[in-house]
């Protein structure tokens, strides 16, 4: 974002200010251009500098082996045999045809079937306030002040996220929980954005949402639990791809970006390039894949 703005900025303004604006972009330029430059410098310093490419090397997907969703799922389920179904996840990798130094896709979305349904969220606020009611409605499991402090002090920490209401921050700091919650990364602080006023909305965002961003021309995200049926997976994948396409369309006036390859994999399986079809000519019935693992 900052990068394009600096390009659009008029030439007359290219002074220290615009350089400063471009600087935060530098580390984001991905490490590869750096490395290639460095290699070229050490290897052939006297020679002419090789022209650096600004696109990723692309390959022909048509020559690759491709699978329909049901086939890929059959293989993946075979690879994940005997694993704990809650610890293994389906992942999607979407490769783009894009510039190396262009703007990146970055957003968050809520899948129709959330991957991680029961994140246990603890909200620290006065238990009889309006904020507490909001938090409970949004799906927080633990709401309160002193009870939670006592519980944590005894060593019972049964939540994965912790949010604190702005008014309760003082009380929290006085309780001295940093020693216990700090190492777990659960201590609320303004820096990490876990001290908020609108408790309800932030809890809701935390419960179902998942974030994705493009790195090296690839967007990766967990799209399903291993126990999902093919239909559920199809809906999730569709939602994810639609969201991606929308993001691409939003930046289409600045840059062209196209989906190059879609790969479905899981924690313990290789990646399967998807054809985009639900089931192939001789794949098994989807019903067989919907049972427990």
């Amino acid at each position, binding site marked *: 974002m900052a990068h394009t703005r600096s390009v659009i900025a008029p030439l007359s303004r290219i002074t220290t200010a615009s350089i400063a604006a471009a600087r935060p972009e530098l580390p984001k330029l991905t490490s590869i251009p750096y490395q290639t430059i460095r290699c070229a410098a050490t290897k052939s310093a006297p020679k002419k500098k090789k022209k650096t490419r600004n696109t990723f090397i692309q390959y022909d997907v048509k020559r690759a082996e491709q699978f329909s969703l049901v086939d890929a799922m059959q293989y993946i389920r075979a690879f994940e045999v005997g694993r704990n179904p809650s610890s293994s996840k389906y992942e999607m990798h979407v490769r783009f045809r894009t510039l190396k130094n262009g703007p990146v896709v970055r957003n968050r979305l809520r899948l129709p079937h959330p991957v991680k349904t029961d994140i246990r969220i603890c909200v620290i606020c006065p238990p009889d306030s309006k904020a507490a009611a909001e938090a409970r409605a949004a799906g927080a499991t633990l709401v309160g002040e002193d009870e939670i402090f006592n519980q944590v002090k005894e060593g019972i920490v049964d939540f994965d996220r912790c949010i604190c209401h702005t008014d309760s921050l003082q009380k929290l700091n006085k309780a001295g929980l940093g020693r216990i919650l700090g190492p777990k990364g659960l201590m609320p602080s303004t820096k990490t954005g876990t001290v908020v006023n609108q408790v309800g909305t932030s809890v809701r965002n935390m419960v179902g949402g998942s974030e994705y961003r493009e790195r090296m021309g690839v967007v990766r995200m967990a799209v399903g639990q291993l*126990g999902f049926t093919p239909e559920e997976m199809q809906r999730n994948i569709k939602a994810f791809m639609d969201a991606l396409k929308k993001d691409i369309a939003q930046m289409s006036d600045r840059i062209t970006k196209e989906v190059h390859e879609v790969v479905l994999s899981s924690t313990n399986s290789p990646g399967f390039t998807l054809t985009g079809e639900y089931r192939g000519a001789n794949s098994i019935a989807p019903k067989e894949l919907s049972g427990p693992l």
Partner: protein
Amino acid sequence: MVNIVKRMRKLRELLWIRVGPGALILPKEVTKISMEFNTKIIGGHRGARKFWREMLPRIKYRNPALPIQISRHSDPSGPSLLHIYMSANPGSQPAATSSPATTETSTPPSGTPNPRNTLTPDTSTPTHSIDIKMKGESEILDQLIEKTGAVVIQPTPQELGELEEIKEFKERAEKDRVDVREKLMKERREEELLRLARGEAAAAT
């Protein structure tokens, strides 16, 4: 993203999950398979783990609807068992098998660390319990086939040919790897010698 060539090679080698020992179709009576063994191989649990890693994917691929569960304990002297559940015997078996299925569809699988405990506990007794301690993976497979009467899928000549090809390729790769390594080591050694010589020269002058 992993290099395309690497990925495609992995997919070509997927053949192993379609053919080979363990590629069999279990009869319909078998409702569930579960295993129980140690997390470490010490104490005769090696075969069990091998069976899980090598044979179970093939079984699962050919019988996608069959639930397979594994629970691993941390006691080396503990049991190492293969349970086979069959619906042929009358009693609580059909009810027990159908109830988890219904709960599975109504509630989404949970993301808690140990959801198996939250599901309906499996109280039904297995039809066959095979002790697989100190046994190799092929022995275990033989016993499984014997107990269930599974039909083994024979690989087609084409698949056999492909398997042969992959094997040949791997052999060649191993040979190449040795060659390249030798060459690399030689280069490095020479470089090291050169460096030493130069260093000594610098020290002398």
